[in-house]
């Protein structure tokens, strides 16, 4: 089948988590007849187990649908699935850049959320045609009229432009397909110019190497041609290219307007960067597609195997994960407390959680993750600037002129009754309110400038808890800003536990140190001798407490010769010990390293 630009539509779906994006995609595939019978399992485009379980999309997966409209004309619809989380801003923006239209999906029960608005603005910025969709109208608690009003306020659209659907029952789907071909413009791009293909995602295939997911904006690329990546000038030969179904379907060429894949044969997926432009080596285009940026990790955490024997396994697992996830970065690191491990950089907290979970689940590793951290800029007295993403490696205090921390612009949407608590927890975390706006009679949008460090520690959990789960959050990095920050150390029986070191605002150091000591006191089991716990800034001890030695139940009667009971208890304790780390003379349960996360302020 030859490519007909006039009868092609490239679009994506943008929605808040849980608003039914993946189910809607499933339904479109079903109604267009792209997938049949047993191919249809729920959320087909979410390929990882983790994605299906969490109901979120981590890796975007495009698919091409053949659609015959009500007049019998044949269309090609390319659906580009976008990652549905705040951590993946840049990836979302590249996916949007590949489309001409977007279905903006909002849950009929929950209404518009922070992410919906931000992604909508992003879509408007990319000049996409927006098709508003209210999903889940089959639910008893659905409030379609209310959500309709929100849409009208937001988009200034007419009520009859808004599509009411139920992705679950299929209601409204045929009409929605008609709207896609009517409202989304045909793809731009001139096949007679130099080849220009925007990479909106990439994966690593063990058989063919790195595969770029592309949108052709100009010219044509044929199988076997030599291509060039514009950001790094690397050249590869096209081993294969084509379209997406559930699998890749090989073709002879891709031309302007099309969405497809190009197998580059590159051995390292990091060479095929999202946002980069592919052109032909012989006849390159003049300018790359604008907006390319390198994936920049925002959140850092040390990952350590609980059992030192698993170090090599962890290294191998990270290498494998990185093949498919160019945004994951890591370097080797060692900690006096935790031994050898890796300092990993993530796009955000969810990204961290996902990687950690995949390492534990898919690679069967037992990990300790340190308190998530951000990258500080440290201005030294000699005028030089160092970057530091591990608090334990902060330069000596006497050499430091100032410490700058990343500030994000955080946007919260909350029902109005929670405005007070939302502002309170934000101020408690050194947030500065920059905007407050009523979206309608019930919902308020409040924006803050907030230190990212405060955000990664517990802001999101806290926000969910003070708003009973109703608030939504979106954030974006703004700048680094100097503040009065100090390094807080935890010392156990005289030994510094480097993995518990954190950077805090000076004003919070005392209360934070005290609470941390108390939490550790709860978590560190009694041992053969007393354990002194101290929190210190430099040589100044801010708080101290101790765990008294263990000396109970030692004369347990070996009743009637019941020695197995005693031994089995020891075996069980030994299992428990696997999750303990020895620091100096003290054994610390793994939980303790996470406890810093759970300390109430």
């Amino acid at each position: 089948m030859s490519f007909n630009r006039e009868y092609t539509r490239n679009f994506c779906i943008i929605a808040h988590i849980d608003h039914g994006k993946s189910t809607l995609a499933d339904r479109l595939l079903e109604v267009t007849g792209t997938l049949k019978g047993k191919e249809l399992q729920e959320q087909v485009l979410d390929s990882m187990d983790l994605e299906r379980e969490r109901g979120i999309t981590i890796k975007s997966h495009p698919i091409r649908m053949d659609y015959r409209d009500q007049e019998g004309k044949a269309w090609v619809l390319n659906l580009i699935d976008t990652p549905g989380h705040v951590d993946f801003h840049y990836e979302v923006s590249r996916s949007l850049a590949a489309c001409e239209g977007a279905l903006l999906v909002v849950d009929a029960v929950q209404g518009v959320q922070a992410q919906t608005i931000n992604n909508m603005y992003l879509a408007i910025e990319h000049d996409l045609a927006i098709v508003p969709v209210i999903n889940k109208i089959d639910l008893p608690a659905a409030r379609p009229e209310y959500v309709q009003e929100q849409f009208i306020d937001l988009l200034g659209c007419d009520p009859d432009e808004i599509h009411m659907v139920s992705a679950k029952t299929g209601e409204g789907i045929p009409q929605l397909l008609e709207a896609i071909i009517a409202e989304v413009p045909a793809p731009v791009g001139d096949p007679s110019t130099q080849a220009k293909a925007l990479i909106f995602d990439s994966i690593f295939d063990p058989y063919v190497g790195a595969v770029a997911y592309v949108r052709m904006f100009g010219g044509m690329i044929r199988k076997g041609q030599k291509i060039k990546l514009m950001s790094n000038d690397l050249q590869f030969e096209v081993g294969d290219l084509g379209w997406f179904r559930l699998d890749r379907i090989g073709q002879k060429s891709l031309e302007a307007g099309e969405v497809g894949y190009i197998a580059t044969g590159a051995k390292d997926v990091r060479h095929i960067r999202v946002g980069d432009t592919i052109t032909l080596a012989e006849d390159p285009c003049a300018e790359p597609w604008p907006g390319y940026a390198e994936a920049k990790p925002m959140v850092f955490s040390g990952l350590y195997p609980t059992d030192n024997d698993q170090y090599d396994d962890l290294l191998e697992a990270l290498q494998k994960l990185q093949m498919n996830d160019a945004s994951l970065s890591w370097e080797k690191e060692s900690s006096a407390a935790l031994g050898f491990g890796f300092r990993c950089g993530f796009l955000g907290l969810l990204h961290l959680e996902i990687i950690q979970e995949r390492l534990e689940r898919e690679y069967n590793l037992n990990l300790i993750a340190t308190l998530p951290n951000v990258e500080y800029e440290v201005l030294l007295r000699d005028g030089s600037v160092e970057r530091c993403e591990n608090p334990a490696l902060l330069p000596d205090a006497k050499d430091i002129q100032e410490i700058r921390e990343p500030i994000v612009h955080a946007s919260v949407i909350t029902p109005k009754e929670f405005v007070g608590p939302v502002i309170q927890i934000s101020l408690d975390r050194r947030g500065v309110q920059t905007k407050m706006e009523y979206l309608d009679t019930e919902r308020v949008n409040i924006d803050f400038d907030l230190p990212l460090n405060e955000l990664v520690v517990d802001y999101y959990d806290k926000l969910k808890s003070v708003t009973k789960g109703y608030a939504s959050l979106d954030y974006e990095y703004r700048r680094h800003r100097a503040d009065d920050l100090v390094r807080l150390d935890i010392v156990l029986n005289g030994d510094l536990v480097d993995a518990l070191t954190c950077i805090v605002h000076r004003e919070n150091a005392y209360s934070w140190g005290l609470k941390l000591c108390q939490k550790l006191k709860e978590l560190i089991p009694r041992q053969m001798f007393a354990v002194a716990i101290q929190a210190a800034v430099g040589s100044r001890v801010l708080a101290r407490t101790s765990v008294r030695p263990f000396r109970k139940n030692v004369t347990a009667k070996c009743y009637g010769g019941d020695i197995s009971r005693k031994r089995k208890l020891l075996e069980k304790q030994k299992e428990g010990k696997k999750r303990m780390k020895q620091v100096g003379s003290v054994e610390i349960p793994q939980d303790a390293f996470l406890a810093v996360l759970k300390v109430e302020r």
Partner: protein
Amino acid sequence: MGLYIHVPFCGSICSYCHFARTSVHDRSSREQYVDGVLAELALRGEKCRVLGDGMRPLDTAYFGGGTPSLLEPDLMRRLVTGTVGTFDPAPDFEFTAEANPESLTRELAEVWLDLGIERVSLGVQSLQDDVLRVLGRSCNSVMARQALKLACGIFPRVSADWILGPDLRIDYLLAELSEAADLGVEHFSLYILEIHQGTALQQDVRRGRLVLPGDELTERLYLAAGEHLEKLGIEQYEVANFSRPGAESRHNGNYWNGRPYLGLGPGAHGFWGRRRYANEADPDRWSEALASGRLPEAEVDPLDLPARRLERAILALRTCRGLPLDWLPAQTLDLEKGQAMGWWKVNGDRLILTRLGFLRVDGFEEALAGRILS
């Protein structure tokens, strides 16, 4: 070999007890029980040639409970002759039975002595009435003193149990131990009160009706009692056991030395042929198994080599003979540090815990488990 027979009957249930026991029983259920033990012995004899041939002499027998002293004299006679009586006793055969102060009568004591029971272990627990009440004991201090006198007058060897628990006053405790030693008690077991799941005491603690003594107080009680007994010439030979020289419990000693023992009765444990077994604790289920010709075992624990090594090491560590250093894997315990802390002495090729060390034995055992099982 040793023989342990568990007698599960009690007059009332003590608040701390988690052993196999029942307070609901009558003459006919006690008869049924005795028949059951004899049937279990016969069944085990069929399954094990050594046992069936009576080729192995009996070193020790121990009747524990529950309350063996609740068995009527005629039932006790049937039980003893049908079990102990079928074996050849070793020359220095030791025969112990447990008794509660309130059920040990002169008549019963004389029958026991006649049956060859030469050592009695009396569950005194305390001579403080308020403490006895907390523990849910059905005797008071007057009855306990009478029973001590009676036992010491009749039996050549008397042991007594004490519990270190709530409301205990150190000065009272030491005076009680002196009093018992003066009466002729040659062996003491001192247990630190443990709270077990499903006991009345656990409820009391959970609801705040009972406050357990803090670790510091428990430690002081234990150290003071140990020192006091030693002054009386009664020496510690295991973490919880003290005796005049030569009066150690050989039955328990065999447990700790890894010697085989046969356990009969509900909830009894045995160690035989490199395997440990635990009988059904529920008397009805125990009877049912026997009635259908099955061994009444609820659990069998085949011991692999690391498990046997760990058992032998922790049991040795709990005794005053100590742990042979060559059973101690490298880098398990810091020998110098422990000596400096006063936790143990190294005597020749053995590591011997001090009383201070015994109070931390759980930690040392964990360290051993960590090395031996890995």
